[in-house]
């Protein structure tokens, strides 16, 4: 059992972070492409640091407390998982703060074509998932049932479903973009 020590710690980290996904609706898993690229970039950079540090003798792993599967550069499998679990926990924590703080903590990636959404972000939340180019329609429910369908899904292409809003990023003339 002792060789599972490192793996158990990683499992604990994962459990300590993952609950925010269903309970706070942080929607990190729904943005999986962005997550995957983030984790890949961080893994290459910090995996490189780790390999160099082990080669330089800065630290070493107790062979009795790891699975024993070694990867490129003699890196334990757990260390690769570490660079998945910890960045994932960081993104989940970051988005959990934003889920709780809402528009009070903008970072500029909230709406297309803007750097930082400051004054209009309350409005952005008020209209829910409507496209930025759409006019506000307070009488409508804030979240149409298919609002997070992929851009090219059949539901989004239905003629009654905002037919001209294919492209998020180009505000149409005569309409008021949220930014």
């Amino acid at each position, binding site marked *: 059992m002792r060789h599972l020590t490192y793996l158990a710690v990683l499992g604990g980290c994962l459990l300590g972070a993952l609950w925010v996904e269903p309970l706070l609706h942080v929607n990190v898993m729904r943005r999986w492409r962005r997550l995957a690229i983030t984790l890949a970039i961080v893994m290459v950079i910090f995996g490189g*640091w780790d390999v160099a540090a082990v080669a330089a*003798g*800065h*630290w070493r*792993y*107790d062979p009795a407390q790891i699975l024993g599967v070694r990867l490129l550069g003699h890196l334990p499998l757990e260390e690769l998982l570490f660079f998945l679990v910890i960045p994932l926990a960081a*993104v989940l924590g970051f988005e959990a703060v*934003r889920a709780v703080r809402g528009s009070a*903590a903008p970072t500029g990636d909230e709406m297309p074509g803007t750097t930082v959404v400051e004054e209009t972000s309350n409005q952005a939340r008020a209209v829910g998932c409507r496209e930025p180019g759409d006019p506000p329609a307070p009488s409508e429910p804030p979240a149409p049932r298919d609002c997070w369908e992929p851009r090219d899904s059949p539901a989004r292409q239905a003629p009654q479903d905002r037919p001209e809003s294919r492209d998020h990023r180009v505000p149409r003339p005569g309409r008021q973009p949220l930014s």
Partner: protein
Amino acid sequence: MTYTVAAVLGVVGALIADLAILRTRLVTRQVFWLTYPIVLVGQLLSNGVLTGARVVTYRPDAIIGWRIAYAPVEDLGFGFSLVLLTLSVWVWLGRRGLDRTPLAGQRHRRRGRGGP
């Protein structure tokens, strides 16, 4: 190079990425400083177990010798740069239009009742 020097360089590198390369400027934003302490508590706990149980051991002459929750103080620099770079890349990709939505906190209505 010692781990001490590497940790300082790691922090400087992550700051340069955040401020000058990706220009996400997270270290100037409240949301980052609300997030980091939460992640730091998790790091101190998990890293404390890993170093306390001696899963990871450090060469004494590679570190300065100050320890926090069993772990060398250099691990704080390693962890900070890991968290900052991760979040900076995450925000940068979002700004470039990759998977901006659904935003955190937005409920997803399941299709079904009253569906097409």
